C-alpha cells in the first residue's frame, strides 16, 4: 500500500512537470499552429537562469527569475523568428528545429555539457508520511505548483479578454482578425506564457532531478509532446488529464517492470490513442 | 436484369450528432445521367463522400452494379469503376498536365509500384494524350497543372477520371468557377460522359446545364430526398419549388 501511495505521488510529481511543459506547448500549437521544437530551449534557459541566481545569490528568487527568463525567451523567439515567417507555417516549425539545435549548443558553450548540481530548498529533502508512505516533499512542491498553474490558466482562459481571444483563435484565427483583434499580439502572448510555464518547469525540474544539463529540456520535451498529442492539441484540461495518465503509467511500469519499460509503455499508450482517436482525447476546444 | 450502375439504399449519415443525410434512396442506371440539386448545405457533398467511401454511412447501403460496396475503402471503389471530382478542383499542382493524366492511367492499369518501368512509358503517354484530346486539353500537356485556369483544371479533372475508364461518375459542381464562354464546351464534354453505358451523378447549380444534360433530377433538401424525376416534372413540383427555388420574399 505504502509503495502504491509513494509511486502515485511520485507519478503525479512527474505529471506536474509534464503538464507545465505541455500546456504552453499545447496553447502555442492550438493558436499559432506552430509545433514548437524550441520549447525545450525555453525550459533550459529558465532552468539555467534559476540555477545561476540560486548558486550566486539566493534560492528564493530562483523561480521568479526562471519564469521571467523563460517568458523573455519565448517572447523573443516569437518576435524575432516566428513573426517574420507568418504565412509560412512549415518554415516556422523548421526554424524552431534550428533554434532548438543552436540554443542547446549555446547553453553548452557557456556552462558545458556536463550536468550541474541544482540547489534546492532544504525542506524539500524532508519526507512527509502519507497513508504509511514516506513521501519526499519535493513531490508536493511540483504537484502544488501544477495545480496552481492549472487553476490560474483555466481562470485566465475563462474570464479574461485575452483568454477569450486565445480560445477563439484556437478555433479560427482568421475570424479573430476579422473582428478587429490583432491576433499576432495573442501569438506573442501565448509564446510568452508558454515560455514562462516552461521556465517554471525548468527550475522545478532542476530541483526535482537535482541537476541541470543543456539537453534536459529536449529530453523532457518528447514526453511533453506525447502529453500534448494525447491531450488534444490546444486543450489545457486535456493536457492535465494526459499528463497525469502519462506520469502515473511511466512511474508504475518503471517500478514493476524492467528499467525503461515505463518510457516505452508511454509510447505504446500514444500509439494506441492515436490509432483509436487520431484527434487526441479532448478534441479541439480550449480550457 | 441489369443492375443499376449505382444504387444508394436508405443511406443516412451524421456528422457527430448532427444528422446531415436522412435515409436517401437513389439509383443511377447504366448510361443514365442524374443531376442532384438542392440548396447549399443540403448534404449533396456529404452524399458524394458517402458514395465514394470517404465517409462511412451510419445506416443504409451503397451498391455498384448490384454489389455492396458500403464497407470498401475509396481506392477499392475506384478500382471497381467509381470516379469522382471534387468541388474544389483537386489536380496535382506540381505535376504537368500530361503527367497528371499519366498518373491516372498508370493507377488504372496497376503499374504504379514497378520502379523498373520508366515513367516516360510510351503506352501510358499515348493513352494520356488520347484522354487529353478528348477533353480538349491536348495542347496544354506540358503546362504545370497548378497554373491552369479554373475551367481548364475542371477539364483536367474529368480527364483524370476518364483515364481510369470508370463505369460510374460522380461530378461535384463541374461548372463552378468556369467562365460563361467556356461553359458550353465543358457541358459538351460532360454530356459525352455517359457514352458506353457509364452512369453519371452530378451536383450542379447551373440550372441550364442541369436541365439540358440530365435524364432525371434528384432534389435534396435538409438531407432528405424530396423527389427524383424528369427535369420538367421536378421543376413543376410545388414542394421542390419551395425548397430549392425559395419562396417569394
Amino acid at each position, binding site marked *: 500500500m505504502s509503495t502504491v501511495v509513494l509511486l502515485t505521488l511520485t507519478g503525479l510529481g512527474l505529471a506536474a512537470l509534464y503538464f507545465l511543459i505541455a500546456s504552453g506547448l499545447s496553447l502555442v*500549437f492550438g493558436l499559432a499552429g506552430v*509545433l514548437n*521544437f524550441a520549447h525545450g530551449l525555453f525550459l533550459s534557459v529558465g532552468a539555467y537562469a534559476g540555477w545561476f541566481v540560486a548558486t550566486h545569490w539566493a534560492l528564493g528568487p530562483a523561480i521568479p527569475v526562471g519564469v521571467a527568463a523563460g517568458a523573455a525567451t519565448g517572447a523573443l523567439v516569437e518576435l524575432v523568428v516566428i513573426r*517574420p*515567417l507568418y504565412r*509560412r507555417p512549415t*518554415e516556422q516549425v*523548421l*526554424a524552431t*528545429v*534550428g533554434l*532548438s*539545435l*543552436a*540554443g542547446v*549548443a*549555446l547553453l*553548452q*558553450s*557557456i556552462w558545458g555539457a556536463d550536468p550541474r548540481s541544482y540547489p534546492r530548498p532544504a525542506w524539500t529533502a524532508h519526507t512527509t508520511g502519507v497513508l504509511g508512505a514516506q513521501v519526499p516533499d519535493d513531490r508536493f512542491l511540483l504537484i502544488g505548483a501544477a495545480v496552481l498553474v492549472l487553476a490560474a490558466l483555466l481562470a485566465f482562459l475563462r474570464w479574461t479578454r485575452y483568454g477569450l481571444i486565445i480560445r477563439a483563435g484556437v478555433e479560427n484565427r482568421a475570424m479573430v482578425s476579422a473582428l478587429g483583434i490583432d491576433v499576432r499580439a495573442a501569438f506573442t502572448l501565448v509564446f510568452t506564457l508558454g515560455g514562462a510555464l516552461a521556465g517554471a518547469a525548468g527550475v522545478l525540474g532542476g530541483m526535482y532531478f537535482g541537476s541541470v544539463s543543456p539537453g534536459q529540456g*529536449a529530453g523532457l520535451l518528447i514526453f511533453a*509532446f*506525447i502529453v500534448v*498529442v494525447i491531450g488534444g492539441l490546444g486543450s489545457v484540461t486535456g493536457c492535465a488529464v494526459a499528463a497525469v495518465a502519462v506520469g502515473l503509467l511511466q512511474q508504475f511500469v518503471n517500478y514493476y517492470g*524492467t528499467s*525503461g519499460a515505463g*518510457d516505452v509503455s508511454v*509510447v505504446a499508450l*500514444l*500509439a494506441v490513442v*492515436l*490509432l483509436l482517436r*487520431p484527434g487526441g482525447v479532448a478534441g479541439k476546444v480550449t480550457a | 436484369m441489369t443492375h443499376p450502375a449505382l444504387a444508394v439504399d436508405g443511406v443516412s449519415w451524421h456528422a457527430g450528432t448532427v444528422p446531415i443525410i436522412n435515409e436517401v434512396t437513389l439509383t443511377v442506371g447504366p448510361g443514365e445521367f442524374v443531376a442532384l440539386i438542392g440548396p447549399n448545405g443540403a448534404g449533396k457533398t456529404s452524399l458524394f463522400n458517402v458514395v465514394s467511401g*470517404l465517409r462511412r454511412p451510419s445506416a443504409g447501403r451503397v451498391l455498384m452494379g448490384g454489389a455492396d460496396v458500403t464497407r470498401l475503402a*475509396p*481506392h477499392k471503389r*475506384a478500382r471497381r469503376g467509381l*470516379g469522382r471530382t*471534387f468541388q474544389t478542383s483537386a*489536380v*496535382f*499542382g*506540381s*505535376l504537368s498536365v500530361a*503527367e497528371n493524366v*499519366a*498518373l491516372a492511367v*498508370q*493507377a*488504372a492499369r496497376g*503499374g*504504379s*509500384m*514497378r*520502379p523498373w518501368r520508366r*515513367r516516360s*512509358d510510351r503506352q*501510358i503517354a499515348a493513352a494520356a494524350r488520347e484522354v487529353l484530346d478528348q477533353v480538349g486539353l491536348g495542347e496544354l500537356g506540358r503546362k504545370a497543372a497548378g497554373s491552369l485556369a479554373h475551367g481548364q483544371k475542371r477539364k483536367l479533372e474529368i480527364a*483524370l477520371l476518364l483515364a*481510369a475508364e470508370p463505369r460510374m461518375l460522380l461530378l461535384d459542381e463541374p461548372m463552378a468557377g468556369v467562365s460563361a464562354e467556356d461553359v458550353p464546351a465543358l457541358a459538351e464534354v460532360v454530356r459525352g460522359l455517359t457514352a458506353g453505358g457509364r452512369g453519371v451523378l452530378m451536383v450542379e447549380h447551373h440550372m441550364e446545364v442541369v436541365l439540358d444534360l440530365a435524364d432525371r433530377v434528384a432534389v435534396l433538401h435538409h438531407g432528405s430526398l424530396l423527389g427524383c424525376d424528369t427535369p420538367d416534372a421536378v421543376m413543376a413540383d410545388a414542394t421542390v419549388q419551395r425548397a430549392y427555388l425559395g419562396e417569394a420574399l
Partner: protein
Amino acid sequence: MKALIPLVLAVALPWSTLDIPFLFDGPLNSPGTLQLLGVCLVFGGLALGYDLLFGHAGLLSFGHALFIALGAYGVGILVNHFYWPLWTAVLLAVAGAAIAAFLLGAVALRVTGIALAMVTLAFAQVGWIVVNRDPGGLTGGEEGLPLGPAAVPGFLVGVANTVNLYWLALAFLVVVVAIVHGIRRAPLGRVLTGLRDDERRIAVLGLSPYRIKLATFVLAGALAALGGVVYVLLTGGATPYLASTDLTLSLIVMAVLGGAGTRWGALLGGIVYAYLDQRLTHVGGSLPGPLGQPLFVLGTLFVLAVAFVPGGLAGLRRRTLSATAS
C-alpha cells in the same frame, strides 16, 4: 550524363595528392581527409534517403534515426556479441530494420501530418531509451559500441585502408542515388509527387495511399540502416548519437538546407552539413564562445537559411541561374 562528372572525380580523388590548405588538414588522399570525406558521403546518402520520405513523398517523419541505429547497432551486436561474419550481419541488420520499418510504419502511417511526426518521434525515442539503458550490456550505453576489429575483414581495417572505407561510403551513396533517382524516374515517382500534392485524390484514382507510403517508409528505413552500417565501419563503432532525435533533426536540416524534394538538394545539403559539422568540431577550440559549437553555427545558419533562402541551396542555384539569364 553530367552527373557522372562528380562521380568520376569522387572515384579518382584518392589518387590525388592535392593539398587544399584551408579546407582540409592533409592532402586529399591522406587518411584523415579521406575519412572526413567518407563521412560526408555517408551523410549525403542518408539525407537523400530521408528526403525520399520528407521531400518527395511529403511524409514528415521524426523517427529516421531509429533505422540508422538499427543498422549500426544491429551489425555491432551481431558481430561483437554473437560473432557473426560481417556481411551476414549486415544483411540481417538491414533486413531487420526493414521489417521494423514495416511494422512501425504500419501503425504510424495510419495518421498524417503532425500526428505522424509525433508518433514517429515517440517510436524513435524508444530506440534512444533502449540504446542508453544498455540492456544486457548489448549496446554499451553512453559509451557506444566499438566494432571488434577481429570481426572486420582486413581490407577495411587500419589507417592504410581508409581509402577502401572511402570507396565503401561512395558505393553507399551511389546505391542511394540509383534507388532514389530510379524511383523519381519510374511511375512511382509520379505517384509520390501526387501523394504530396493531394492524398485524397490519389485514393480516388484507385491507388492505396497507405500502401504506397508504407512501401516508401520501408525502403527509406532500409537505406537508413545501410547508411548506419557504413557509418559504423567508417568510424569504428556505433554511438548513441545515431539513435538520437538530434540526428533526425539534422537530417531535416540537411534536406532543407540543400533543397527538399529536388534532385540533388538533400545530397548536397548532407555533404555540406557533415563537412561543416566535422570541420567546426575540429577547429572549434580555436573559436571564441558559442562559435566553437558546430551545432550553434549550423543551427543559426539553418534558421537564417529558412528565413531568407527558401528552397535551400537548390533554390538558390535556380534563382541565381534565372537572375543571370535575365
